């Protein structure tokens, strides 16, 4: 009886989290925060190891018996192959500059989401098995044994990084945590540990040509649907072609723009623009995906998926490739494609057929971003725009991480935006351009089962949108990324209700004055051109 607590002890609740070192704090897989495991059939389709049914919330992850050797061998291989990885493992001085720059740390308050600690997840193993001091002194120098708990921790935290690279902006050594995350994911992949949300699109893309797995006839059908919708709004029937040999340009968009709301309106914008300028282009039902979830899987898989763009361009005999509004697609094209599958010698250096502008930055990849292309058209007065058709919107612009930080792509989208709408308001300086906050769902995290985690990671972005909504009455968040278009509506609904999401070329489509068009009474979404925009925030 003496051990029974007294009443005052019973009511004293300790709200404080346990004070333990991060290494001794195993991960708890709470629903809403993690991604479902990849289905075996997808791994089989790609020839990836250890296909099996498993779940992160079960104790047994069904790892192969020699899993430790596989990981350490894979780690060794990568240290030899990627000098960047070796450097990133060695040079961090733990200055802390990155610590509070990650949207997941800011939103979760979880120290293991500080980029420095996320990297320590790998470094602790690197020290233990690949450095003398780590082998000798272990924990004293931050080294630890590779256990199944560590593997689980890797899965939890490397899939809480969107590879947005905001942290790397602040690192005095230029350590790129996205690269560390990519390595961590590759090592997990050696054991067959992938999220289904990433590997299913990869398998689809490998088999059919796009993430969604839309087959050629259905792809065409979806584009036809856009054509009908455009006709309803403008009275003009645009005529895209498919797999047409001899076209000057191959246009590749992220597949999200072809079938999902609100991306589909951006796709309509592309088609209208191409029609209006009489562009000699074709769509491909084989290279029907600009995105590349291979980036979130492994270098090998990324290369495999990327190759189809060049193959198809070569097969069709086009001069160059024009790419749609996508985020990670452009990181792959801008930073990996040329060394993976390039140089694309069978293609020509891109030149705009309308303005004669040479896109020298794409001399080697032969692939041009649609925003550069459109900005150039506007600059040369090749299209007529009526920005008042977007007067129903008060717009702010979210710099998508990859075009911003992987391409330095800041001005072109803003230039277009200022020409196609009258009311554009910037978010605060430390949340845009190179410092832009991630949507919280990139890097393959845009599933629905981890919605809670996405809301945490996206909060810093949403908070800045909330500010311009309050201050200026902003009601539309424009972006140039298909993942953004897919995930930001949910983020807005939770944190800043009343703010819609649109791709830039949807606004271009609204503003574009087309020869012979009927008088426009609605936006591409079928909503009245003028009306509630001014009133709804007062």
């Amino acid at each position, binding site marked *: 009886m003496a051990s029974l607590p007294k009443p005052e002890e019973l009511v004293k609740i300790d*709200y404080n989290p346990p004070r333990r070192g991060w290494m001794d704090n195993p991960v708890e897989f709470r629903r809403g925060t993690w991604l479902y495991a990849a289905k075996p059939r997808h791994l089989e389709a790609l020839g990836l190891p250890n296909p099996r049914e498993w779940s992160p919330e079960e104790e047994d992850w069904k790892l192969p018996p020699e899993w430790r050797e596989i990981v350490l061998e894979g780690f060794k291989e990568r240290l030899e192959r990627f000098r960047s990885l070796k450097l990133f493992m060695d040079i961090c001085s733990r200055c802390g500059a990155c*610590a509070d720059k990650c949207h997941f740390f*800011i939103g979760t308050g979880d120290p293991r989401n500080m980029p420095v600690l996320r990297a320590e997840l790998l470094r602790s193993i690197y020290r233990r098995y690949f450095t003398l001091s780590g082998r000798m002194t272990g924990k004293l120098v931050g080294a630890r044994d590779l256990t199944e708990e560590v593997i689980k921790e890797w899965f939890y935290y490397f899939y809480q990084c969107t590879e947005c690279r905001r942290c790397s902006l602040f690192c005095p050594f230029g350590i790129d945590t996205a690269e560390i995350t990519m390595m961590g994911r590759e090592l997990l992949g050696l054991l067959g540990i992938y999220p289904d949300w990433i590997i299913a699109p990869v398998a689809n893309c490998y088999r059919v040509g796009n993430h969604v797995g*839309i087959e050629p006839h259905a792809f065409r059908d979806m584009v036809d649907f856009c054509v009908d919708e455009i006709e309803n709004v403008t009275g003009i029937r645009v005529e895209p072609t498919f797999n047409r040999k001899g076209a000057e340009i191959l246009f590749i968009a992220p597949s999200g723009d072809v079938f*999902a709301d609100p991306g589909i309106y951006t796709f309509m914008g592309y088609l209208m623009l191409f029609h209006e300028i009489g562009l000699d282009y074709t769509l491909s039902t084989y290279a029907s995906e600009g995105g590349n979830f291979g980036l979130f899987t492994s270098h090998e898989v990324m290369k495999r998926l990327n190759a189809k763009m060049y193959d198809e361009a070569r097969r069709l005999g086009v001069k160059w490739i024009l790419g749609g509004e996508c985020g990670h697609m452009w990181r792959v094209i801008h930073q990996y494609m040329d060394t993976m599958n390039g140089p694309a010698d069978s293609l020509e250096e891109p030149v705009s057929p309308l303005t004669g502008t040479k896109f020298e930055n794409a001399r080697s990849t032969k692939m041009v971003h649609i925003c550069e292309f459109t900005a150039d058209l506007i600059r040369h007065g090749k299209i007529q725009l009526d920005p008042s058709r977007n007067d129903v919107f008060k717009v702010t612009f979210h710099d998508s991480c990859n075009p911003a930080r992987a391409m330095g792509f800041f001005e072109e989208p803003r230039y277009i935006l200022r020409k196609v709408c009258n009311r554009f308001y910037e978010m*605060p300086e430390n949340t845009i351009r190179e410092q832009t906050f991630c949507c919280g769902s990139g890097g393959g995290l845009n599933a629905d089962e981890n*919605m809670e985690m996405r809301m945490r990671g996206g*909060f*810093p972005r949403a*908070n800045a949108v909330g500010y311009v909504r309050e201050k200026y009455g902003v009601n539309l968040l424009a972006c140039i990324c298909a993942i953004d278009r897919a995930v930001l509506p949910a983020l807005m609904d939770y944190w800043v209700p009343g703010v819609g999401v649109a791709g830039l070329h949807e606004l271009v489509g609204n503003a574009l004055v087309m020869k012979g068009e009927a008088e426009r009474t609605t936006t591409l979404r079928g909503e009245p051109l003028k009306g509630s925009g001014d009133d709804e925030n007062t």
Partner: protein
Amino acid sequence: MVTVKLHNFLSGKKDAIINKWYEGVLKTYPAEAARFLREEKDRFANPVGYALYEGMKGIYEELLRGLEPDRVDPWLDRIIRIQAVQEFRPSQAVAFVFLLKQVVREELAAAAAERELPWGELLEFEARVDELAGLAFDGYMKCREELFAIRIKEIKNRTSRLLQRANLGVTIFE
């Protein structure tokens, strides 16, 4: 014996009480996060810290004015909306409300010294805090329900066009 007037006391000590209350809430986060939430003053770099502090200030003001759900809800929402998606159990997410009782009792005890405590007023105040906790739980449930609804809406949006084109004749949309 002189009695402390609670309302005057709570108004006079406002900043000290809010700061202490805020400190208590910060302690529910891991130490590294608490340091960041406390020290980073930029509201865009530290949106969680900013929202928590502003929310608590707003709630405290409303408590002093009486407790009108319509007026206090937006302030509560600032905090609860965050905690409803963070690593807290439901009881932990609303627990910050109860921390205020503890802070007020401590401050009051320290200030009263030899004077008589305003028991009646204090009980009334604490009853209001309890009511506030109820409102916080309503807010918590509202946020969680929204979260689930948003998840469903997203799944529908993702497939809407395909289903429409497939002429399935199924109307799953509002």
